[in-house]
């Protein structure tokens, strides 16, 4: 048996080397088919990673809920503790400062920019790719000056980051500790994260209190006169399996949070709490999946055509080779040996074609990566490359096609009688 197999393999190699024309003819269809398959897998892998990264940069890791509480919050620490209590794993403030502060260096005021008040824990919720410097640490909250991390385009607009000031009419010195890299994943507008700390509290929340009017005797500030627009916004990270994550509108979560609202909020109605998913990787995965199924279908059809090509060449040559195969049998080849030889020959040819296809795909992808890098600034983790899985899928399907295309001719070849074959 083993001897049959090895003899079959030796004959197959000798056969595909001796019959170059036959080999090349069989190859072409498979090269195109396997190439298409590898490229499709590569593209959908790239799309997937691009989508995930985009989602993590713009929204957050799965599953991130943006929680908004309308109305006056009297005890933020209690609210944040409750956000954790109802299932959140990480919580960060994500608040558009009511004072709408701007940044400037000297007389250079940047007006087209956005600021969000956040906590150091945001780094556990949202993907933050730092170009230089660092993200906030808890120690930064003790800083006497407001501490910021800005994105690259804002950093460029500001120029000298050591003399940045924050404010609107009243300016005060600010510290910039890090710069986030711009990429096609964020909107690349000028944006800054402002660390929530005693030094920045009034910038983030002060406007609302001011708008709420003077405190009334016996009531907490803002109560009763609270700005109906006052709104606290948080990003909360959940386990993907958490019920709150499964429910995009956060019904369960809202109810749970609403029932303890008395602990930290004055006059916060249940409908004043809203929650929704901001990570959209899953939402994007669906259309991406359909797209890659479509492409996969095209690749499969192409590969199928290649298979028919190899099969055809195989069948034609078996007819031609009846005499050759009968000769082998006369010389002592068993049916097994010849079956292995004919099938192996098809497999060898297909795998060689598959290797050529993979090589071509690698070259094309390399070229594509140069273009992507040029026109689409993306982080390294999203880089365009042929994933190992694509190579495996390509070579695997090449071998499978060879196997399929080899079995029918091999079975045919063995049906013919030796005597008849020798008489041809």
């Amino acid at each position, binding site marked *: 048996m083993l*001897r049959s197999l090895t003899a079959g393999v030796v004959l197959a190699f*000798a056969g595909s080397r001796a019959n170059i024309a036959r080999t090349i003819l069989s190859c072409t269809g498979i090269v195109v088919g396997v190439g298409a398959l590898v490229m499709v897998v590569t593209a959908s892998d790239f799309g997937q990673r691009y989508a995930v990264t985009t989602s993590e940069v713009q929204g957050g890791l799965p599953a991130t809920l943006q929680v908004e509480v309308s109305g006056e919050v009297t005890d933020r620490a209690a609210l944040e503790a409750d956000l954790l209590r109802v299932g959140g794993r990480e919580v960060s403030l994500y608040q558009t400062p009511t004072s709408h502060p701007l940044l400037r260096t000297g007389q250079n005021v940047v007006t087209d920019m956005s600021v969000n008040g956040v906590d150091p824990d945001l780094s556990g919720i949202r993907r933050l790719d730092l170009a230089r410097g660092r993200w906030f640490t808890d120690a930064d909250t003790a800083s006497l000056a407001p501490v910021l991390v800005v994105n690259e385009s804002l950093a460029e607009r500001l120029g000298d980051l050591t003399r940045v000031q924050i404010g609107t009419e009243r300016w005060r010195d600010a510290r910039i500790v890090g710069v986030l890299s711009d990429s096609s994943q964020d909107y690349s507008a000028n944006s800054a994260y402002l660390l929530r700390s005693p030094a920045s509290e009034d910038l983030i929340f002060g406007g609302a209190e001011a708008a709420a009017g003077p405190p009334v005797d016996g009531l907490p500030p803002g109560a009763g006169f609270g700005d109906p627009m006052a709104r606290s916004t948080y990003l909360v990270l959940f386990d993907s399996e958490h019920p709150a994550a499964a429910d995009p509108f956060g019904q369960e979560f809202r109810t749970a949070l609403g029932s303890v609202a008395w602990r930290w909020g004055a006059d916060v109605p249940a409908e004043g709490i809203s929650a929704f998913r901001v990570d959209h990787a899953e939402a994007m995965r669906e259309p991406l999946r359909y797209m890659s199924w479509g492409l996969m279908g095209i690749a499969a059809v192409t590969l199928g055509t290649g298979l028919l090509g190899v099969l055809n060449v195989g069948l034609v040559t078996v007819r031609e080779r009846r005499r050759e195969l009968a*000769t082998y049998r006369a*010389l*002592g*080849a*068993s049916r097994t*040996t010849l079956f292995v030889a004919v099938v192996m020959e098809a497999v060898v040819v297909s795998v060689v074609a598959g290797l050529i296809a993979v090589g071509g795909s690698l070259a094309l992808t390399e070229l594509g990566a140069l273009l992507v890098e040029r026109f689409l600034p993306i982080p390294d983790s999203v880089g365009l490359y042929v994933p190992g899985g694509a190579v495996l899928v390509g070579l695997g399907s090449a071998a499978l096609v060879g196997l399929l295309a080899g079995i029918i001719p091999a079975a045919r070849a063995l049906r013919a009688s030796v005597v008849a074959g020798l008489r041809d």
Partner: protein
Amino acid sequence: MSVGAPSPGSPRTAAAPLLDVRGLTRHFTVSGARIDVLRDCTFQVARGEVVAIVGQSGSGKSTLLNLLGLLDRPSGGSYGFDGEDTTRLGEGRRSRLRGEGIGFVFQQFHLLERRTALANVGVPMVLGGVPLLRRRARARELLEAVGLGHRLHSRPHQLSGGEQQRVALARALSRSPSLILADEPTGALDAASSAMIMDQLLEQARIGEAAVVVVTHDPKVAERADRVVELVEGRTL
């Protein structure tokens, strides 16, 4: 240098004939009609014996040789090869026996067209699992023995008929068979080549102690045999 490969595994007794053919028949059915080609063949061939089978064209000589070569199965009768009743053997064992015990020389040579003389001679040894280097060495040696030491890398179409048949002879000898079957080996050759081929065939068979069954209607070939078996209307005389 000895180049003998192991001979078939079954035990031999000097007295037992190599081939023991008894009442062998073979008929074909062509569109419903039965054609009795071999009606009763009975004869024996001793080890190392040279037997010529003669008969008119269409008398069934090739059919008989195909049965002897285990390329075909008889309709009836028995065929003992080296003490084994071949009619009971499965396809795998018959292939093995063919590869190890029998060498073929065909009228049309049946060389593999795109392969060199060296590779052609090596094929039975590939099937027998002989390692590459030993295979090469033995093929070279055999080709030298039939006077083709200078044509090792020629392909069949680059060789004359006589040379091709010598390659085929070397191939038939490559696994030191105990039986060489030759179906009109000189039928496609001129007189000079024919004589040379027969010389070499008989010489190599003698060296390898192989029996030879040669189908021919060339009297010159027949007269060199130890014995002549005549086929008349599918019966041996």
